[in-house]
């Protein structure tokens, strides 16, 4: 998990969505959604494009009004408050820097709206530019900056008013991979240093897992699951989440027996020992096993027997595709800790797959 700071989801929420719905010409973008975001939290809204995550963020910023439901900030209903009166600032995906103003005046824009004295504005702008490592760039126009610098100006502009909540709409979409990773860590440090609440919208699960304390996985306008990155990855409560986050093997089967230690599932691939679950014998279920949780060994033994039908070499990892004797093909990921020539498993070799029962999840939906 991200920063190692523990967030208590039961604490008094700073932001609360209460049964919020929003539809555009009859199509629901956000559907009766409820969510609490805690003070000081880095919360990520994650989902495929069109899942309603941006609409949710824009409702919090005030650019969209919910059709039904309430949005509370600090316990106050802000549904009817116009965006220019909300103590919330947003960093736009396009950055939306004012092209006719230089960097310093872009950053000062929000403070000038508050009518603060000039000296205070200047001091706070300089402080923010220093924090963003933008000293000396105050006189530049946005078009004279690199993409990464523009991104930092946009961040500085949205932070300088010390918002109760900072909203980040796909903040790193326009950056290349290396810069994106650096920026992710910078965002986390920044949040910790300023002690603010951040809400980020992203379609990039790696980004969401890296920066956030908790994430909400959305699809079709609804929150499918909310939890820490580890919970979402290790304990997905639906096939959709298991499949959306990371790589997974999903095997359909029927519960043979269910006890407090384990669940035994009969499947086309063979009998599978999985983690304990609230199921009864005869239930139709899916077993989810992450590729890296499967152990692959040459030859026979206890476990699922099969044959390697494809190998993908990724450098740090190797991906094996194993056709089990029962039919289903399973993906196995193995960390390449030894040199290629020393690896014993080749194409078309007979192998056995084993796993810890606890890492095979039984899913009912």
């Amino acid at each position, binding site marked *: 998990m991200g920063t190692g700071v523990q967030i208590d989801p039961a604490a008094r929420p700073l932001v609360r969505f209460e049964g919020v719905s929003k539809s555009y010409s009859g199509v629901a973008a956000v559907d009766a959604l409820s969510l609490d975001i805690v003070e000081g939290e880095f919360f990520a809204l994650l989902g495929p494009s069109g899942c309603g995550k941006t609409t949710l963020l824009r409702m919090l910023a005030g650019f969209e009004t919910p059709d039904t439901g309430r949005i509370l900030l600090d316990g106050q209903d802000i549904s009817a408050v116009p965006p220019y009166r909300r103590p919330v600032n947003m960093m736009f995906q396009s950055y939306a820097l004012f092209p006719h103003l230089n960097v310093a005046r872009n950053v000062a824009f929000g403070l000038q709206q508050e009518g603060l004295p000039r000296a205070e504005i200047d001091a706070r702008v300089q402080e923010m530019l220093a924090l963003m490592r933008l000293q000396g760039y105050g006189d530049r126009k946005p078009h004279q900056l690199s993409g990464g610098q523009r991104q930092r100006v946009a961040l500085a*502009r949205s932070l300088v008013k010390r918002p109760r909540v900072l909203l980040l709409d796909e903040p790193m979409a326009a950056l290349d991979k290396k810069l994106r990773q650096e920026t992710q860590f910078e965002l986390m440090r920044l949040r910790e240093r300023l002690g603010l609440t951040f809400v980020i919208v992203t379609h990039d699960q790696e980004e969401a897992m890296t920066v956030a304390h908790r994430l909400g996985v959305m699809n079709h306008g609804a929150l499918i699951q909310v939890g820490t990155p580890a919970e979402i990855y290790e304990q997905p409560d639906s096939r959709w989440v298991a499949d959306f986050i990371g790589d997974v093997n999903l095997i359909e089967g029927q519960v043979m027996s269910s006890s407090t230690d384990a669940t035994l599932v009969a499947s086309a691939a063979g009998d599978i020992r999985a983690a304990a679950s609230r199921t009864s014998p005869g239930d139709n279920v899916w077993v989810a096993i992450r590729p890296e949780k499967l152990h692959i060994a040459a030859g026979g033994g206890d476990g699922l027997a099969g044959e390697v039908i494809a190998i993908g070499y990724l450098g740090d990892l190797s991906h094996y595709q194993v056709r089990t004797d029962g039919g289903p093909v399973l993906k196995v990921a193995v960390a390449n800790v030894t040199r290629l020539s020393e690896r014993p498993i080749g194409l078309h070799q007979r192998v056995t797959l084993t796993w810890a029962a606890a890492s095979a999840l039984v899913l009912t939906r």
Partner: protein
Amino acid sequence: MSVPAPSVQQRKRNLGQRLVLWAPYAWLLLFFLVPFLIVLKISLSQTAIAQPPYLPTFDLAAGFSSLFDAMREFSFENYALLASDTLYLHSYLKSLEVAALATAILLLIGFPVAYGMARASRSWQPALFVLIVLPFWTSFLIRIYAWINILQREGLLNQALLALRIVDEPPVWLATDTAVMIGIVYSYLPFMVLPLYATLERMDESLLEAAADLGCPRWKAFWLVTLPLAMPGIAAGMLLCFIPILGEFVIPDLLGGSETIMIGQTLWTEFFANKDWPVASAVTVVLLALLVIPIALYQCSQLRDSAGGR
């Protein structure tokens, strides 16, 4: 390390690029600078009952020495006349006044129209665009004649005003400054709306959201964000209207009265009624000088903007 010599293809391509670059300059040289020099030359000549109606004339066949002899006869008499006779000064001032007022009215009407078009839904914009351009499908002259119909004593405007009981006696519209202003504003509105629309349509709407997000109400965001970003379009629209209105002849001639004599009419009278080509040419050269000033100012601001800003 030596720089490799350019290949034959490269040299051919460079030649092609240079031709393309020089084509507009050649065009301007042939169809702007040369005619202008001819006009300038005529403006320094004297009228004569001759063919062409001025002296001296250049006769290239008689050699260069005769050319110099002819140039010795040049005088600034015509310009002196422009300065001494208040008729010309008044026409110039009237033209400047009409052009400035009309441009201001055009901006006041054109900006909301262009803004509305740019903010209309994407599916409506092509239709609105066609509506703006539609008048061009009818002859300009016919449209001005149509205005005569509307503005005459028993015209549509007076009928409407009488029917609505706004006036008891039909007011006189034709042959007034007001009629000229109506005609000019009507005719030039597309030239103001189109560049403004082009600028406003390009503007990123998230800039206004960002302004609102930073605590700026909508009306204030208009002054702080929309207007400064629309400046190139405002400047282009104003120039596109101001320059041709300054030299406008047809509209004041058809709709205006004897008290509205714009410089285009003076020019026409000198040229066709008085057959005084040299004075007409002098009027033209001064008009051009008047126009060069705002264009040069605009170019300067464009250069400054591209150096320092957008």
